[in-house]
């Protein structure tokens, strides 16, 4: 089951990524990236991290990509002249070649012969929300609080950048 999820999710992630790089219109690039993130969620599920798998869909596919699509549609209008008139064929090729080199260079090991699997003994409840939350609000509390500052700064920055300049209070 884990092996199946790995190959399925890995294929989705890689294919989505390559197609994203190769696609000409930003909208289809975003849709391919959604596929890639779904594959990554499947990989998280295979790695016994259900909480992260769900958050990956919620944050990336549900929020970040929607923001992307939203901005794309606001910026470019119904006509998308993205990189028209440039040579197109080398874009997918350029994206594929390094990936292919890596896979070929390591093909000796990829089928799994002789490579160790994951250790079978995990602590009970590994990756469940409770355990992650205990770490997050215990050992890593400082980082958790600091990340909230990052988010607040991002909100303020986005508002300041996005709003009409004349309406800003300091102008």
């Amino acid at each position, binding site marked *: 089951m884990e092996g199946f999820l790995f190959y399925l999710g890995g294929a989705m992630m890689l294919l989505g990524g390559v197609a994203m790089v190769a696609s000409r*219109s930003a*909208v*289809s690039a975003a*849709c391919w990236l*959604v596929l890639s993130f779904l594959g990554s969620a499947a990989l998280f599920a295979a790695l016994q991290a*259900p*909480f992260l798998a*769900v*958050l990956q*869909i*919620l944050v990336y*596919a*549900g*929020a970040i*990509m*929607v*923001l992307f*699509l*939203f901005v794309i*549609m*606001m910026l470019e209008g*119904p006509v998308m002249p993205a990189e028209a008139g440039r040579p197109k064929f080398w874009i997918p090729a350029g994206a594929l070649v390094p990936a292919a080199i890596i896979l070929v260079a390591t093909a000796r090991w990829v089928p799994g012969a002789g490579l160790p699997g994951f250790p079978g003994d995990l602590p009970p409840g590994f990756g*469940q*929300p409770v355990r992650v939350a205990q770490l997050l609000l215990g050992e890593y509390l400082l980082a958790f609080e600091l990340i909230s500052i990052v988010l607040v700064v991002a909100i303020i920055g986005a508002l300041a950048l996005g709003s009409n300049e004349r309406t800003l209070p300091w102008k």
Partner: protein
Amino acid sequence: MNIIQHVANLLIRSVFHADPASWPWTWLVQAVVIGIAAFLAFAFVAIFAGPVSWIERRIAGRIQSRIGPNRVGPQGVLQWLADGVKCWLKEDLVPAAADRPLFLAAPYLVFTGMFGAFVVLPFGAQVVAADLNVGILYLLAITSLVVVGLLMAGWGSNSKWALFGGVRSAAQLVSYEVPSAFSLLCVVLLAGTLSTQGIVAAQGGWPWDWFIFRNPFMFAAFFLYFTAAIAEGNRTPFDLPEAESEIVAGYNIEYSGMRFLFFLFAEWANIWIMAAISAFAFLGGWQIPGIAPEQIAATKGWEFVGWQALSWTIFLVKATFLVFVVIQIRWTLPRLRVDQLMITCWKYLVPLSMLMVLGVLVLLALVPEGGGADTILRGAMVGLGLAVVLVSALRVRRTFRVDREHYREMEGRDLWYPPYRLP
């Protein structure tokens, strides 16, 4: 042991007179039962959407003083079948300038996002496809996939109205996800688990054990969730994405035939899902008054199946009632403007829902469960709930009475009374 294995074992024992543990075909019977269950879950929305769409149109007709569909079958009950067949037979149009792959894929993505939610809905005591430990988060995540599908549909159609509809619906869904998630966070705080079955198990069968009547903040959180969920489902008064008077039909304007039907199914599935979430998170879900879940789990044989069916029925009744509330709201309230929509969310619902989370936390710390203060609080909230129901019932009754008097004045005879006038 879940209900599917249970039914399979019962069938093997009673029909084939074999021992399920050693019989070689146990897996086959289980597979067939699982297949039937999956088909029922899959067909559930289709079967549910049809009659309810007819009922909605009849109610709409009644509210708008017209008749509504009444030609196909007695009183038009078969209208939904006729509509379905019509959509099957229609040509599957793809606009010439459309972004073809996106246009074709969008309805299925929307559909998948909606149907993925059915995996964790707790239909009965043991009737749930997968009791995930992250159930509520999974619900939020899988339904947020729908936004991507709507944006794809809006973009792929290459039509101004569709694009407007898609962008509007994306803005709306992303915004209203915040208050709905916060309201569900209140539930998670009280239940101490994200699992949907765990949330139901943390409540009880009687109204005073439900989360909605636990304290005033939960009471408010229920209405906040319901409002936000209606907005997420693109229903009136928040149906800006498909506002007919402004942008014709929104993101699905270029679709025809089955693809259009998929969007409609997704909309109905969404209504059902939001009603089901409200029912299991706030209204006690499938809990049967007077019998604990452990007692149900301890029963054997057909008695077990009977209790399951009863819990299922209770859940269905609660959820269907909420679906009707949604329908009534749709035909009662006028549509908001876009700026009003955003103001409602960000200036009122989001701060209010944060306040509810804070209040629930404070009460969780101050009022121990099962103590005297807790009992008083629950009693007061049940009283408040009864008062709300009573006042709205009286209000509806007054409307009907006035309506009947007007009718008698104008027509000189009595209105065909309760409550939906038949022509």
